[in-house]
């Protein structure tokens, strides 16, 4: 079925459709779209083998703007549709685009299960901490006290951490990015694509209309250095101007603390190295929140195991090897039969 065309060198433009992009001017979604279109030609996947699947929300309009196959489904269920796509054709490169409402409110269960099963897809969760499309109600990631049309006196639910949730669900690839960081996003997407299994990427996305500036504390140019830490496997967990600050384990505890080498007897060697295979470290990084801690950006966790997709293909091969393929008459006549003769 998958006769693929020779892979000419495509450009980001080849991944744009003729449909007018209908997000609000200034929406963070534009930047993410750009980064994704930039990533695509570099994946070495024929365009016709790429499928974008989304739910409902501003973010979920994404497929309309990608000149690949695209399926804009229903609210919260994109992971289930995507699972079906992969069951039918494991060769397709399947990308799920979802929002904090779509993916974590109505769709939390499907996200949980696609992560647990480790179906080989990429999941991009645009977290703007708000319901954009329905005009600004608070979402499961909105901070405590968020005033919105449905919470005029402030929300009272504790927000969910998408990355901690993903880790608790058994995800094997968990990463974080920021809408405007065109420099980092394509690499994140490429890593997500390279990981065989469910790859979860939370992207902080600014909703300029209903939740403007909710991430500026750490995304603001001026704040970035001191309030973001870009983690890289094997590299020390440093941040701040010239990497002056770093993270270490607070002695005698399980907690992280911020230290400055050369101060208070702390040396460079005390700084933790990022180990993206450590579940515990990933959880600690995911839990860090400004202003006390920098926001961890990059691949927090990557620890691959065999994917669901690989396992199912293997089971089918085994079954075929055992049973002669599809002899319908043999099936119908299996078990006890008898003949009534004329």
């Amino acid at each position, binding site marked *: 079925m998958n006769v693929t065309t020779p892979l000419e060198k495509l450009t980001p433009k080849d991944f744009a459709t003729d449909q007018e992009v209908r997000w609000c001017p200034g929406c963070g979604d534009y930047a993410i779209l750009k980064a994704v279109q930039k990533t695509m030609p570099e994946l070495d996947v024929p365009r016709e083998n790429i499928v974008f699947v989304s739910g409902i929300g501003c973010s979920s309009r994404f497929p309309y703007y990608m000149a690949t196959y695209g399926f804009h489904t229903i609210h919260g269920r994109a992971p289930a549709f995507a699972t079906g796509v992969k069951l039918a054709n494991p060769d397709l490169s399947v990308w799920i685009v979802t929002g904090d409402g779509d993916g974590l409110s109505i769709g939390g269960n499907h996200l949980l299960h696609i992560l647990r099963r480790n179906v080989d897809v990429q999941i991009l969760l645009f977290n703007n901490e708000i319901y954009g499309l329905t005009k600004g109600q608070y979402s499961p990631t909105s901070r405590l006290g968020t005033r919105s049309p449905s919470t005029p006196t402030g929300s009272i639910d504790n927000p969910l951490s998408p990355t901690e949730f993903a880790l608790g669900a058994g995800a094997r690839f968990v990463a974080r990015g920021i809408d405007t960081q065109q420099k980092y996003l394509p690499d994140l997407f490429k890593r997500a694509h390279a990981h065989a299994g469910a790859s979860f990427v939370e992207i902080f996305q600014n909703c300029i209309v209903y939740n403007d500036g909710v991430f500026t504390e750490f995304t603001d140019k001026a704040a970035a250095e001191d309030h973001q830490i870009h983690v890289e496997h094997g590299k020390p967990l440093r941040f701040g101007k010239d990497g002056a600050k770093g993270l270490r384990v607070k002695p005698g505890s399980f907690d992280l603390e911020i230290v400055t080498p050369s101060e208070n007897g702390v040396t460079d060697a005390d700084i933790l190295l990022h180990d993206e295979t450590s579940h515990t470290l990933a959880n600690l990084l995911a839990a860090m929140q400004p202003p006390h801690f920098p926001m961890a950006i990059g691949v927090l966790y990557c620890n691959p195991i065999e994917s669901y997709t690989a396992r199912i293909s293997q089971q089918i091969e085994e079954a075929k090897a055992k049973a002669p393929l599809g002899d319908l*008459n043999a099936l119908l006549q299996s078990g006890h039969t008898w003949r009534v003769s004329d």
Partner: protein
Amino acid sequence: MSETASAKAAPARAPRQELETAVVRFAGDSGDGMQLTGGQFTLTTALAANDLATFPDFPAEIRAPAGTTYGVSAFQINFGGRRIKTAGDAPDVLVAMNPAALKVNLKDIKEGGLVILDTGSFTERNLQKAGYEKDPIEDGTLDGYRAVKIDISKLTLEAVKAQELSKKDALRCKNLWTLGLIYWMYGRKRAATKAWLEKKFAKRPELAQANIAAMDAGHAFGETAEMPAEIGGFTIQEADIQPGLYRTVTGSEALAWGLVAGTELAGLKMTFASYPITPASGLLHTLARLKSFGVVTFQAEDEIAAVCAAIGASYAGTLGVTSSSGPGLALKMEAIGLGISVELPLVIVNSQRAGPSTGLPTKTEQSDLFQAVWGRNADSPLAVIASRSPSDCFDAAIEAVRIATKYMTPVILLTDGYIANASEPWRIPDANNFTPMPVTFRTDPEGFKPFLRDPKTLARPWAVPGTPGLEHRIGGIEKDHESGHISYDPANHQKMTATRAAKIQGIANDIPAQTVELGPSKGRLAIVGWGSTYGPIDRAVANLLEEGLEVSHIHLRHIWPLPANLKSLLEGFDQVLVAEMNNGQLSTLLRSQYLLPIEGLNKVSGQPFKIAEIEAAIHARLEK
């Protein structure tokens, strides 16, 4: 014919009585193996060239405490030398393996019927558990029946002594002892059951031997005249059965195989996504074993995920199939609406059960017709068909696949708990004779528009990811009638709504004209049915036709759209009575479409219709 020959050797007995049909119910504790016993009797009866129909009746509990009334498991079979259409109204014979089985089942037995009891199980404790204050064997409870009291427990223990089993294991052979006795009663051969036991217990041959010994002992018990003299055996003629290769099938099996056959005929693979629910799970279980037929099965996290995965799989070029029962179907409706909107093939099997809500999960009902035809937001037409019997599920499944792929539409296939679990003999068709109905995927980018339709079927092209040059986007927002792009244009929405309806309505011209099963094609009274009421309606109508009444049986496969000629067919009758196991759903549908004064005969007790109930309704109407 050695067995019947040796039966003759018991001279003191009443001679074998000739019967046209017989109804036997095996009843016992869930642990007594009544379903296995019934299954074996079914097989042997089929091998004896009788026609038959069965009704397994499980307890709602997984494994209720032994001896309780709610832990009773029963299996009823109707068999005979003529065409058998139902499991029978009132059994001629009840086998009651314990007091609870007697308590629950006696009221159903024909007056003067035979009641075979295991007296060994009528202990004080068991009587109490069954809620008997006095021993029914003594207190006149059995007056009006012919009770055969045998200490089956003891006789079984004796019969299997040689195998030196534990008492518990030994007593487990009681059901085979009983089966042996009933085999004798109807002059049946034991060979098939013997072979089955040997295979089943291949790893524990002592169990195979014990069970065979028990069966032989039970058989010998009858043969050697240990039975009350007035109870002789019976002979039942072979039925006039169409020549061919046969097997027994349950609805779940036939449905699974029909789906496999349908997808093969369409040249497709199948992706089956489901979530367990009684009585639909059997289909999942059966298909899970058919990986070598290109079937991928997926147990999803819930019903919504299941239908969504199936739609995703259809999108990606296999046939997506999902299945559930009433409450689960309700959960799928939002997604089915998407399937209707994006116009992808999808087969949704719904095994109906009694409701509302959780209802009576192990009991049968036909109350999801409204839900199937009308149970979605907005104007959301799809095709609905129904299977009428276990073996009919095979054909119905192929028909569902045909409509889904030819018309690019979701199809709901209605079956029910009764059909899923019951079994009947099936003349195995030769797959080489099936008519292929290959699907053509769109591959040509030239002029490709995702919603440009085939003018004849109004189906849109099926363009599958992986096909170069056909990259496109679809979704649940209203689409331009050609390009498929999002369209808010009022006229386009009106057009698309009309087109979706017309596409489904058009199927009416692509299905067989409605025929009359039995009776004249116009006249005084038509009984209209659908689904599993087929058997009792057909038998009742056959009986009354023999009596000379002017009555006809019409049975629908296609619920939506209805066959094009149905209206005029129904207009040919003075009275139309719709018999269904719900509060009047098909009758409401037909009334709305045809404005005919259709009446309903409705039964909502979790039990199939009895033939007598339908006969009574016919009499009442024809004698007015």
